[in-house]
Every structure is written in C-alpha cells, then in structure tokens.
C-alpha cells in the first residue's frame, strides 16, 4: 500500500449530530485508508455508524472533525458545489433501494450522472452508458423501464449508473439488502468481477455471509473501528453454483 495509490484516507473522523439538546456521537474518531483496487466491506450492527461513514465518504455529509482525503484531495472546507463536482467525477453510489428514475429507460438512468458533467458530449454519454450496461450484463435490456426489470436487474442498472462516470471508488450501502440470497450472490459476483477489473469498492453490509466475498473487512461498533482485517476472499460465483437446486423456483 504505497501512498500514491491511496484512494481514501480518513484520520480521526468524528461526526456528531445535535438532536435538540442532545448530542449523538455517530462516529467517534475513525482512521483508515483504502487503496486503489481494494474491495472493502464495512460491517457492524445497526446504529454503529456505517451509513454515517459512507455518507461522509460519499461527500454527501461532512465530518464534524477529522481529515478526509479522496484521491489526494482534502474534502474539508469545500463548498457545496465543489462537493457536487467531487461526487459527480470521483464517486459512484449504489443504494439499497436502487433509486432509479421511474418511467425512464435503463439507458437513460445510467446516463444521468454524465448529464451533470458538461465535459461529456451527448454521444459520449450514450456510448459510456451502453458500455456500463454491457459491463453489468444488461446489454439487451437498455430500453427497458425500471418496472419491467426484476430487483436484481434494477440493482445492476444502478451499479452501471455508479460505474458510468469511471469513479475512483464505488460506494454501496446495503446494496444486497433488498435481494434474495441467489440474487445477492449474483450481485456480489458482479462486484467481484468489477474488482478484478481494477475497480475500488467500499461495501456496507451487516451480513457476514456477504462480507466474505470482499478481501478486507472493517468492523464498526459504536462509532469506533473494532477490527480491520484482510481475509481470504470467497468466490461468489462458486457460492452461487453451490446453492442447493431447491432454491430455484
């Protein structure tokens, strides 16, 4: 892990919410680094601060204190517009509930981040979106509307949308939370493929059987890092193959 390919670096990150007269310390000093090409899962029980951390990593929220560098750029004291640009150019988001625009084709949903980037021409946008959809295996579903796609397919579209701007890191919050085991494994297999192609991914989950598909796991508890360990990666494709046939309806 050399310094120049550090994608994310947080130091003593704290986030305090003030609710009425009470202070909620969601993050109480978190430090870690994610390097290029890593596939990291962030685990922890409910309320441990996973989403809070991911929102900060995704520049949707700012830390109360502490330092955060993404791709070598400090996020502190950035204006809202600068944060928007960072989100637009450097980050890809995948949400638990897909968040696709209704009545909008898969292709157009995937194009959306590029719409907010004036440097990308109309044609480039289309080509990149098509490429991203091919990458997630939905080449033949480009013109489908979200309501014509299964949950797993919708999440693939969302992943394509997260990849289309060629981000330095893909952030996923409970991306398999709404899916059944088989589809979850399929999505994890897709993430593993992307990882093999060199993508950097941070993946929030509270299911340990999902986390085993990543190469490193950061455990959060009560706003602190409990453990940060590299583990032997299990292949999602093999796990998928090993699923009992009866699960196939």
């Amino acid at each position, binding site marked *: 892990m050399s310094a120049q390919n550090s994608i994310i670096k947080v130091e003593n990150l704290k986030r305090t919410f003030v609710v009425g007269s009470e202070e909620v310390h969601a993050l109480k000093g978190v430090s870690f680094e994610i390097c290029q090409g890593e596939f990291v899962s962030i685990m922890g029980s409910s309320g441990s601060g996973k989403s809070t951390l991911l*929102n900060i990593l*995704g520049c*949707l*929220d700012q830390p109360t204190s502490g330092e955060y560098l993404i791709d070598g750029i400090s996020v502190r004291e950035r204006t*809202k*517009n600068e944060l*928007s*640009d960072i*989100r*637009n*150019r450097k980050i890809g*988001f995948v*949400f638990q509930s897909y*968040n696709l*625009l*209704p*009545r*909008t084709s898969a292709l*157009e949903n995937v194009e*959306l*981040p590029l*719409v*907010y*980037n*004036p440097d990308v021409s109309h044609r480039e946008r289309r080509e990149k979106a098509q490429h991203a959809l091919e990458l997630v295996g939905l080449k033949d579903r480009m013109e489908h509307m979200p309501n014509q796609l299964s949950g797993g397919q919708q999440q693939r579209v969302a992943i394509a*949308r997260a990849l289309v*701007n060629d981000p330095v890191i893909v952030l996923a919050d409970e991306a398999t939370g709404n899916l059944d085991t088989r589809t979850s494994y399929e999505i994890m297999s897709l993430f593993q493929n992307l990882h093999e192609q060199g993508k950097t991914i941070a993946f929030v989950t509270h299911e340990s059987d999902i986390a085993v598909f990543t190469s490193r796991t950061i455990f959060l508890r009560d706003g602190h890092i409990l453990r940060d360990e590299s583990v032997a990666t299990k292949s999602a494709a093999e796990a998928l193959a090993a699923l009992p046939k009866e699960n196939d309806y």
Partner: protein
Amino acid sequence: MDILNLIRISAKALMRNKTRTALSMLGIVIGIAAVIAVVNLGEGLKQSTANQLSDMGTNLIMVMRANQRRGGVSMGSSNVQSLKVHDCELIAKNAKNVTLVSPVVNSGGQLVNGSKNWSGTVYGGSPDYLEIRKYEIATGVNFTDDDVKKYAKVGLIGQTIVENLFDDGEDPIGKIIRVGNMPFKVIGTLKEKGQNSMGMDQDDLVVMPYSTVQKRMLGQDFIQQIVCSAASENVAEAAVEEIESILRASHKIPEGGDDDFEVRTQQEMLEMMSSMTGMITTVLVAIALISLLVGCIGIMNIMYVTVTERTKEIGLRMSIGAKNSAILMQFLTESIILSLIGGVIGLLLGLLLSYVVSLFMSLPYVVNVMWMVIAFVSCAVLGLISGFFPALKASRTDPINALRYE
C-alpha cells in the same frame, strides 16, 4: 449545465407524468385563451362600430336640435323647432368646408301595397341625402331639386321594404304604393346596407323629398336634423366651427348664450362608441386576467406537489452530482415549459374561439398582435414566478434525508 441539456432534463421529467402536466397547463390554457379571445373580439367590435359609423356617411356632420331651458324648465328636443330649411341653405352657401347638405325630416308610417303592408320609417331629405348617408341606388333614379320644389310624391325604398311589399322578382320601379293615406311612386331602390352597430336595420326606410314629408305628411315647417358632408376628414373640425357660427348668427344667439342646436362629427360619435366598447373590453380582459392568475396559482400548487413527490429523485440527482443550482433550474425550466406550452395552446385556442364567435356575430376578425406578444411574454414570466418557490424548495433538499424518503 447548458440550456439544451436543461430543457431536455425538464422535458423528460414532464413527459414522465403526462396527465399531471396536462392538468397543470389547463389553467394557463384557459386564462390565455380567454385573454386572447376577449381582446380580439373587443378589437373586432371596435372595428365593426367604426366600419358602421363610417357607413353612416361620408365625413358626416350631424346638426341636431338641442334641449333648451326656458325659465329653468328643460324642454324635450322633440318640441324644439329651432332648425329650419333656411339653415341648410345658409350652410350650403356659406360653409366652405362643407360639400353636401341635406335637411332631415322623418316620420313613421304604415306602408301599403295592395294586400301587403309594413310599418317603416320615411326620411325626407334633399337629393344629396343619399350620398351623405352613403346609400347607393340599386335600380331606378334619385329624386331631383325639381321634385323638392313640387312636393313630388316620389320615393326610393330600401331592400327590407322591397322584400316585404313586393313579390319575389316583381319590379317595384314605377309602382304606386301608399304611406299612411298618401300614395307615392317608387322611383328607385337602394342597395343593401345591413344592420348598424346598434342592431338597427338600415334597409328599412323610404327616402323622399323633405318638402313632401314636411308639407304632405307632417304639416310642419321645421326639420329634425341637418346632415352634412365635410370636404375631408381633416377639415371636419373647421366645418363644425363654420356651421356653429352660421347657425348662431341665423338663430340670433347672443354672445355667451346657449346654442339651440348641437353639432356632432362622425369622429366624435366614433370616439364615444369606441370608449364604450373599450370599457367593456377592459372589464372582460380584467376578468380573463384573473383566470390567468388562477392558472398560475394552479401551476405553483402542482409544482409544490411535484417537488414533494419527487424528493427521492431530487436526492438521487444531488447524490450523483447535480448542484443545487441545477435542481433549481430544472424545476424552474419545468414550470416555464409548462406555462409556455400552455400559453401557446391557449393562444391558438383563443384565436380559434374569437374566430368562431366573430363568425357567429358577423364581426370582423381582428388579431391583436400586441396582446399575443404580451400574453406570450407574461406566460414565461408567470411560469418563472409560479415555479420559483417550489424550485427553491427543491434545491434546498438535503440529499441524505431525501434518499431515505419514502
């Protein structure tokens, strides 16, 4: 974020909910249609009044008897006998800016031709009367000064009377018909003129020498009116002044005394009429503008609902890099597109509506381009205003909360 992109994003968002888009446009459509229709119809009404007033005569000047006060008691003008044929002769001789003069005496009467009868109005005038009042002879001839001298029992009849007293295809020329007890010979028929702005049939008349009406029908030596033609529109005012000074001298009205007559030009009557139709139009436009305002409130209302309903979409757009300004612009553009499309539809509808109505009311179809521009511009402005607060609300959405919103 370039403008084309913005329009594309907004148009797509609008297309996603066509019914709502159409419904929110409705208010603007109706408002603009009403404004355009009312303005065009008002304009048409004004023009038709102007046309009909100019149909009344060529640079027409009318001299009427005025109400007079005697010892504080006002007398109705019908009792006033101030105008005489002599006055006409003086005007004809001395007023340089007046080209044609005719006295007017009129009398209602029962017109009878064999078994057919019809009640019409008989107008007595000089041979110039027809030209002053812009009546044209369809068949036959006009009466002459000689007829005036001899109180000749001759007359020209309008098309309404031709239709009511004669059979189809029957030639009225040379026929003797009666008005009251007096028989007279029809020497001519008049071309059709239609209704005037008050809805009066201008073809329901008999024109005779004034002397015949005065002596043989009414037995009076005064006249009701004098009609004149000014040499041109430009000298109408000068002509009025000439007539006034001639009549004041002839009627021996002292300096500072009240006139026993009243002179009106066509222009003045036109102004009177157009100020009346103008007032009506103004009131109607005001009502139409209120409906336009209601339409705008409708758009604002729906935009607010839209913003709340699309919280999640806004959150998503922000999370993938849309700036607050981009969100603001998107919703503003949506509202402007809404009101502009609504405005264009309303415009077309208003044009169609005013066309149909003017067809029905046989008004000239006038398109007021200025108001079309005003309507279009105000649509854009109204869209901007009614979209602004909802758009501001949208742009202030917190993406983290918005993404969690169900």
